[in-house]
């Protein structure tokens, strides 16, 4: 009876918890349904680029997001915060720069900000959790954990309430920090594997700082999370009025006079009535110029005069003479520093709107304002408006108005969410209508309907972050077939001499999973489950229409095999090798170092072929990696550089180096970044960080020379002294003696015909050496015994998990070893070169690449090219050109051989193409390329769905594009 009672109570409690918990959870920082519809273009949600007062480009966009909605019993419910309008700039918006910003479709200028830094302490969370850290809805996400020397390090992200996060950061409290990086400036060239592994417990990111206190693989506690927040923002909804400043004189502004009297500190600006008798406001203000520190709370009051009750904010701008009376900036280059010369103008901002973070939207109290800062610069990056209360849509009330917008014509809802056909637990018709009465297609897409009304309409970059968990499934979604985007045809062949370190065409079709390209979960000896997968990438291919042929340049076709993390020796880990499972035996790595070199800022130089030119890349060894200076910012006028290590495949190494010199939080700087950087075994120490180039004093990163593997599963052998074990047909392993306490075992390996015998003592395997396992090759090599040559090569290694058992010593034995040596022809098919890629943290094998050293030519006489041959002699895949007219490719496909059957892909030129770039299979390399082009690919997916052409500026968009330029 008691038992029943207790279990009944427990059941009731469980039901209560289960029913309450999801409803109580805030949608802030969470993703919408993974299969939600995405409509990239709706006229009323704008996307446009402008330039601010200094000619700096600002890419603005708007979107509407619905998340965590549920359709049930004929009702669609949206929780508070579930309907979210997002206005975003890809860069940031700050005062005194005349930075543009969209406010519900209206063009506005940011004129003032109230910023602060929020610090949250002692946050504990579990792996996979996205834990709210404050009332505003910021969440900390514990995404991933892995290890080095068996010690954990973790990857985290701070997610803004909108769902945006700029990057994942790695931290660990278990390793030496960046401050412990020794002076390595004497190192140059290849040196042996270094012992230290660096990872800082604090991630410094400009205005943000995240410090981990303690963690393991499953749980982490953060000592503090500091990140910038915006408390208040003031926008001007009209173009400012610019008046020439005349010293000791006044200018008329409507029915007011604005005097300017010169003083040592600046100008005394006095605003009076029309007759000049009544002073409305007066203050000494200084001319605004481009220095970033001026928007600091301590400084900014000196640069503007706000007239109470008069909707006026006055600044004095230093502008080139030709900019007088205009906020147009007619050139396209950035002007990061001040003007060389110019004139002074009084700039009067009017139609001012001030919004407060967390407060109701002034025109519509049903919506709450959210202001999100750029985590690096602390300036405004995003404005959100969210429904304050939950709402439902049903047969009686089928629409919910968006927030009321400011308008020159009449203030009206900026959009309207309509769900006009809900039946039971399915919605069969819902859409969004904008302020110009334009609507989207029916978002349920099919007659089956949907179980929620989640959607994303518009093109704000938040879309990319918010889909991190589901983008792969979305892009590989087979609902509408393999999407193929038609090429832009050029009047010249897009020739690339070599494609190493370059990404494929961002419009390359993604074939997703295909039989013949393996992908499976594998388990190593430690019981860790890892995804192992292989794929094919073609990059840089082009139609040479002068010679009626298709060319794949050197390194333009590569086979890729990769696991979810690096592949480690001594653990029996496997990877795919041309469709077969291969067991790694051992590896050979070094540290590539360089010193005293310059790296230029990388700028995309489009040549209309979508292949940027990377002459700024600095090579790191031969066909290993390159360094690329990809981003540059000024943080209070101190240059900050982001440098990436780019792999041979064209993907970035996970951790970019964020570097700036001369910043110090102790000295009151608003920003801090390390002046050198180290993560794992890769480090960089700059001599000088400039805005357009960095001089590097010392740099090092791992390089891999070779790996050895076998297709035969390693066999465990438990031997007593004197016992023998055959290794394949030709060899025998014999244990001569062992010392369990010292962790030593002496073994003999011999050819069975007696022609060769070797003896070696393996070990020691003790606490000291275990501290370097499983990554350090010196220790790994001390536990392994390689014997014989060529195809007869065998290997025995100590079982590091249980080396001694019941008075015997345990070994794993490998036979028929094969070698993958960097920059040598592949043993199984010499037409391809081996390019193993190394983990930048830990010297282990990260990826196996096989690529073409010579151009591949396809034409009418040679419409087929076979990829690398598998063990059975058949090519793993073939490229087959079906229809090519000398300029356009109209039909081609990929064939794979899998279990004695031939599988064909869809036509990869369903729309005519001028190259055969493609991504087939799914692994980390292909994911990287997909993530980089996610927004455009997703937009194309939507065009493909309805058969539409990419959205040109037409209709109302054409009109607004002209109106505001």
């Amino acid at each position, binding site marked *: 009876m008691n038992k029943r009672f207790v279990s009944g109570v427990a059941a009731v409690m469980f039901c209560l918890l289960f029913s309450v918990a999801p409803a109580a959870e805030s949608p802030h920082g969470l993703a919408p349904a993974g299969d939600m519809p995405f409509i990239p273009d*709706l*006229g009323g949600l704008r996307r446009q680029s402008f330039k601010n007062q200094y000619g700096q480009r600002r890419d603005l966009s708007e979107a509407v997001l619905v998340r965590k909605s549920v359709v049930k019993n004929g009702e669609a419910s949206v929780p508070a915060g579930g309907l979210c309008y997002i206005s975003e700039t890809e860069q940031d918006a700050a005062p005194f720069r005349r930075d543009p910003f969209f406010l519900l479709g209206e063009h506005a200028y940011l004129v003032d900000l109230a910023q602060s830094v929020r610090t949250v302490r002692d946050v504990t969370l579990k792996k996979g959790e996205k834990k709210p850290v404050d009332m505003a809805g910021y969440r900390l996400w514990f995404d991933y954990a892995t290890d080095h020397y068996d010690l954990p390090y973790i990857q985290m992200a701070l997610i803004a309430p909108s769902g945006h996060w700029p990057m994942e950061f790695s931290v660990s409290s278990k390793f030496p920090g960046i401050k412990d990086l020794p002076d390595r400036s004497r190192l140059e060239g290849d040196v042996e594997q270094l012992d230290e592994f660096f990872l800082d417990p604090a991630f410094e990111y400009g205005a943000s700082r995240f410090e981990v206190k303690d963690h393991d693989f499953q749980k982490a506690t953060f000592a503090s999370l500091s990140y910038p927040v915006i408390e208040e923002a003031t926008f001007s909804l009209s173009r400012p009025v610019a008046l020439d400043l005349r010293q000791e004189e006044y200018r008329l502004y409507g029915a007011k006079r604005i005097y300017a009297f010169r003083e040592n500190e600046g100008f005394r600006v006095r605003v009076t009535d029309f007759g000049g008798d009544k002073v409305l406001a007066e203050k000494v203000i200084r001319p605004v110029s481009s220095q970033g520190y001026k928007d600091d709370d301590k400084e900014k009051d000196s640069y503007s005069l706000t007239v109470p009750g008069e909707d006026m904010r006055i600044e004095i701008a230093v502008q080139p003479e030709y900019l007088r009376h205009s906020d147009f900036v007619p050139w396209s280059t950035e002007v990061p520093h001040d003007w060389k010369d110019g004139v002074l103008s009084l700039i009067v901002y009017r139609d001012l709107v001030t919004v407060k973070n967390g407060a109701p939207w002034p025109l519509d109290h049903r919506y709450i304002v959210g202001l999100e800062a750029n985590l690096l610069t602390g300036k405004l990056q995003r404005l959100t408006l969210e429904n304050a209360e939950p709402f439902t849509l049903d047969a009686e009330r089928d629409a919910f108005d968006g927030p009321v917008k400011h308008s020159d014509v009449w203030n009206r809802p900026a959009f309207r969410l309509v769900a006009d056909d809900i039946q039971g637990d399915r919605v069969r018709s819902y*859409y969004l209508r904008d302020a*110009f*009465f*334009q*609507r*989207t*297609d*029916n978002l349920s897409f099919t007659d089956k309907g949907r179980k929620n009304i989640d959607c994303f309409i518009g093109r704000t970059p938040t879309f990319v972050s918010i889909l991190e968990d589901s983008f792969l499934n979305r892009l590989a979604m087979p*609902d*509408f*077939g393999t999407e193929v985007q038609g090429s832009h*045809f*050029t*009047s010249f062949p897009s020739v690339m001499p070599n494609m190493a370190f370059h990404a494929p065409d961002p419009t390359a079709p993604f074939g997703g999973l295909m039989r013949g390209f393996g992908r499976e979960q594998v388990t190593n000896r430690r019981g860790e489950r890892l995804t192992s997968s292989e794929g094919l990438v073609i990059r840089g291919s082009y139609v040479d*229409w002068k010679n009626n042929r298709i060319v794949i340049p050197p390194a333009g076709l590569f086979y890729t095999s990769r696991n979810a993390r690096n592949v480690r020796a001594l653990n029996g880990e496997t990877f795919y090798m041309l469709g077969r499972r291969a067991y790694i035996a051992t590896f050979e790595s070094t540290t590539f170092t360089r010193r005293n070199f310059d790296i230029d800022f990388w700028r995309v130089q489009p040549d209309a072929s979508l292949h940027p030119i990377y002459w700024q890349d600095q090579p790191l060894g031969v066909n290993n990696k390159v360094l690329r200076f990809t981003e540059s910012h000024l943080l209070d006028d101190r240059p900050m550089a982001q440098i990436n290590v780019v792999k041979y495949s064209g993907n970035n190494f996970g951790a970019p180096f964020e570097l700036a010199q001369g910043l110090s939080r102790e000295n009151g700087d608003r920003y801090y970044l390390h002046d050198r950087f180290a993560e794992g075994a890769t480090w960089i120490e700059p001599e000088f960080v400039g805005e357009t180039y960095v001089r590097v004093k010392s740099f090092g990163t791992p390089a891999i020379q070779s790996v050895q593997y076998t297709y035969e599963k390693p066999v465990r052998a438990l031997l007593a002294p004197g016992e023998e074990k055959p290794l394949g047909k030709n060899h025998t392993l014999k244990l001569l003696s062992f010392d369990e306490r010292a962790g030593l075992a002496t073994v003999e390996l011999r050819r069975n015909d007696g022609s060769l015998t070797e003896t070696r003592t393996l070990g020691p395997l003790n606490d000291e050496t275990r501290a370097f396992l499983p990554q350090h090759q010196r220790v790994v090599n001390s536990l392994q015994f390689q014997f014989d040559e060529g195809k007869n090569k065998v290997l025995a290694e100590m079982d590091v998990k249980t080396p001694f058992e019941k008075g015997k010593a345990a070994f794993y034995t490998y036979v028929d070893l094969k070698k993958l040596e960097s920059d040598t022809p592949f043993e199984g098919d010499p037409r391809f070169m081996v390019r193993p890629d190394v983990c930048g943290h830990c010297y282990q094998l990260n990826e196996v690449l096989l690529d073409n050293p010579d151009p591949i030519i396809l034409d009418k006489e040679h419409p087929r090219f076979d990829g690398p041959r598998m063990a059975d002699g058949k090519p793993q895949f073939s490229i087959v050109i*079906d*229809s090519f*007219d*000398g*300029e*356009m490719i*109209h*039909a081609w496909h990929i064939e794979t051989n899998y279990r004695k059957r031939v599988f064909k892909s869809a*036509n990869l*030129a*369903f*729309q*005519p193409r001028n190259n055969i770039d493609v991504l087939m299979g799914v692994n980390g390399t292909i994911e990287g390329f997909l993530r980089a082009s996610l927004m455009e690919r997703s937009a194309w997916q939507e065009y*493909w*769905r*309805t*058969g539409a052409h990419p959205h040109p500026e*037409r*209709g*109302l968009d*054409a*009109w607004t*594009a*002209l*109106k505001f330029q």
Partner: protein
Amino acid sequence: MNIPYETRRRSLFSCLYSLRESLPGLLAMFFIALFSNNLAGNPNPLTLENLFRWLDAVIGPINHQPLFQILNSNFVWNPFLMGLVIGNVFGVPDCWKRGLSFIHILMPLGIIMLAPHFMFSHAEKAGLPLILAAFAVMLFTASLTMLLGRLLRMDDRHYATIAGALSTGDPHVVAILMPMLKSKGGQVINALGCVLLFGLVTSFLLPLLGHALNMDDKAFAVLSVFGVGNTGQTFNAAFGYSYEAGHWAHYVEPVRHALMPAGFLFVFFVMFIRARRYPHAENVMATKAHKTLPLFIVAFIVAWIAVQFHIVKEPAHLAIFELVKWDFSLAAAALGLSLPLREIAQWGLRGVVLAFASGLARLAVLVGCLLAAAHFRFPII
């Protein structure tokens, strides 16, 4: 003083009206074009094309396609419509008429410039069986339509225009055939209306038939492209059936496109030979005004053959097509301005009967062929 033409002739262009005489009419065409289409180099956003796009967005898509695309709004239709409204509401001053007569130069010029648009290699991917089948269906439709037109005692220019447009599946062929057949403006627009009406009705009804017959997506795409024609209406039918059929319709559409010149040239040569054989027959009007094979047709055929050898690359083709849009925008504006509504109405409803009779016969043949292909498991694409 009246100076004879031979005396004042200086060049090939001496036959044209002087700029002063033709300027008002040219300006009228120019401004109608500017406010009708988003033409290359025209920054004006206040165009009829943009208005229709906005209305499309307000109404919302039908079968995922914009309504005005289904109604065939395009760079010919828009200026024609605007010209028609202006001409019929406000009238056309005499001083415009000399300028409007430039339509007789713009039309042939536009046709020649269209040559790079019809690349046979774009159709190759669909495979030879489908291309041959499409070709046969096209000739069958053209022949049947001309035969039925004669049986209905229609003006030969009228039924030949319908035959060209219906068989090629593109209503704009009426504009191409106008200078070829020497059709009247009223006949051309009447024929356009007939073919559009047929396409509109069938594009909504065909999915019902497809579902009733449980047709394969690819087969239905082929049926839409060759049975309905007219790009917007084809996609309306195909996407109305399924997304997959819609995508395959996009795939098959280039076949119809590539074969189009063969269709309208077939109609022209049939009527041209007929006019040569019966030069004195009163009911033979089509092409009769041509004393010899018109030069622009020869030029078009030469250009069409030449472009098959890829002498015009895609970027050049796109640039030429922008010129085609300008050319036809001006010509369509002139046509609309010079066409009273009664001239369209005077050709009656026989064209509608003809378009539906011939079109439905084509559909029946196509359905039969596609079902037979399905029965014998013959791969269509």
